[in-house]
């Protein structure tokens, strides 16, 4: 809605984007048999999913880093929202790793 709304939700927006892309591309990959195509020592399917995950982890980490700094506005609302946004971004980053870490281990299309 406004600057503060963005702060609060940025971290989880990245989580949501990772979720949508990973789930969609997982289905696409299985449909087109990417799990049976060898690539970089594993399957094309696993590589593309891992790349999507890592990009999102990087984005999530960047948001944590940005919100971790001191804001330049000193009013109570801004400080509160920044701290809450920071905690939410941290939670979202941990959630991203926890929810989607399976792309490195689990069988992708069975």
């Amino acid at each position: 809605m406004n600057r503060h709304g963005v702060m609060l939700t940025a971290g989880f927006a990245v989580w949501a984007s990772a979720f949508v892309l990973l789930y969609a591309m997982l289905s696409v990959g299985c449909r087109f048999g990417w799990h049976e195509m060898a690539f970089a020592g594993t399957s094309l399917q696993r590589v593309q999913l891992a790349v999507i995950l890592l990009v999102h982890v990087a984005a999530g980490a960047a948001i944590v880093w940005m919100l971790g700094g001191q804001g330049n506005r000193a009013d109570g609302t801004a400080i509160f929202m920044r701290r809450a946004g920071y905690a939410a971004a941290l939670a979202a980053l941990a959630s991203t790793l926890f929810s989607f870490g399976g792309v490195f281990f689990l069988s992708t299309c069975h």
Partner: protein
Amino acid sequence: MAVLPLLAACGGPFSALEPEGPSARGAATLWWIMLAGFAAIFLMVSAVLALALWKPRTLRTFGAERTMVWGGLVIPSVILTVLVAAALALGERLLAVPSDPAPLRIEAIARQWVWEFRYPDGRATSGRLVMPVGEDVDFAVTSEDVIHAFWIPRLGGKIDAIPGHENVVRLRADRAGVYGGVCAEFCGDGHAPMRFSVEAVEQGDFEARLAEFGAEGQQ
């Protein structure tokens, strides 16, 4: 001692707590571990709540922030990580991944309100499934009308029978015997009686038994 009659109550032709195959056994083991662990968690949370109400000093010295961080964040995270990892590892073992030699494949076709089973030799049975013990069997499950679900509680996890899709579930019976099978997804008026019996027979008897029952349904 009070637990004993309850344990005895865990039996029955459809009991998932009396497993006869690896899939059901894995789930049952997971269940007993979770039951014990979660009972302990429940008691501990209740104890903390009781402390808060009647002996708040302990919690006050521990600190409000720390109560939240440890109770809400740290302890549940550790438990969940272990649990999810274990459950996914178990799930991975149960998948019907291609294997060599390929397991026996039986088609399970659901229609309102009967189960039909088709065997590799072209025979078919209806309402009664015959399978060999001691080996993996892949059930290719589908439906000809609405959604049903194929479930033999004592052998293992269920899979939905969905028109237009074929789902494969890998089950194994460790002992010969007759087990109950049900339709687990609501499928209309005949949902409740849409059961089937599963006859797990020694591998040597499988062909003969199938010939006996499967004759009429031969295709």
